[in-house]
């Protein structure tokens, strides 16, 4: 029976969660061997991706991708974290992990991605909204 990456990730999380560092190393080594035996090593990137999601969800860590034209300052990130904590979608989350990404196409402002939610306040998106409004009126 074919094992899906999500199932692998869940298994990996269960064997590494609440384990000590030495135990984790041995567990991961054994796990990788198992995946290789099954011939599913090519799914490894996806397994890791799911693992991170499961880990973050379990530990109430919000992994947020922040896109901006220029790199944000620490002050910006702190202000952003404060603001995000107040939003309903981040209710219950204890920690915020920002993955920063610069993108000149945004022109200005920020675009925030969390799981399947997107908060796009970039200037590019604003111009796009303006364009849509103009074409409708």
């Amino acid at each position, binding site marked *: 029976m074919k094992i899906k990456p999500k199932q692998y990730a869940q298994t990996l999380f269960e064997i590494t969660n609440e384990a000590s560092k030495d135990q984790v190393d041995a567990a991961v080594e054994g796990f990788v061997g198992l995946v290789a035996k099954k011939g599913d090593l090519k799914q490894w990137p996806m397994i890791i991706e799911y693992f991170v999601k499961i880990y973050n969800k379990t530990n109430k860590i919000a992994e947020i991708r922040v896109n901006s034209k220029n790199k944000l300052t620490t002050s910006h990130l702190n202000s952003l974290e404060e603001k995000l904590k107040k939003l309903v979608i981040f209710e219950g989350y204890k920690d915020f992990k920002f993955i920063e990404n610069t993108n000149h196409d945004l*022109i200005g402002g920020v675009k925030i991605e969390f799981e399947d939610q997107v908060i796009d306040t970039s200037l590019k998106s604003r111009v796009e909204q303006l364009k849509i409004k103009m074409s409708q009126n």
Partner: protein
Amino acid sequence: MELIEKLGIDWRLIIAQMVNFLILLAVLYKFLYKPVLKMLTDRTKKIEQGIKDAERIKDELVKAETQKEQKILAAKKEAESIVLSAQKVAEENRQKYLAQTKKEAQEVVDKAKVQIANEKEKMIKEVRADVSDMVAMATNKVLEDVVDEEVDKKVVEHTISKL
């Protein structure tokens, strides 16, 4: 008798002549008068019959003529009635066809109006889309030039404050 003799009349001759006359009369009566009379009577009867027949034929001719005229009149009346009826039907069909043609023409006009309105709306939409594309492009271009690091910082701060 002596007187008759003195006159030179022979009574025996007279009697003989009288007898001869009678015999002649009888013969004539039997062989001439009767056949001729019969012939004349037959002819008269024939003529009378002929006259009767002629009159009968004449009456029948008149009757036939009258009947013919009556039939002709009836046929004329029927023909007139058929013509009238056909004219009425033709007129009704003409009116129906006219109304149908008018209706179809109106439908074509209405359809064309709707099509024109739709085309107009479509064109307006396209023009709007083109204009908004151009405005967006121009705005992006301007912003790319205007938004430097400093401006972007301010934009980011403003954006975060509005979250």
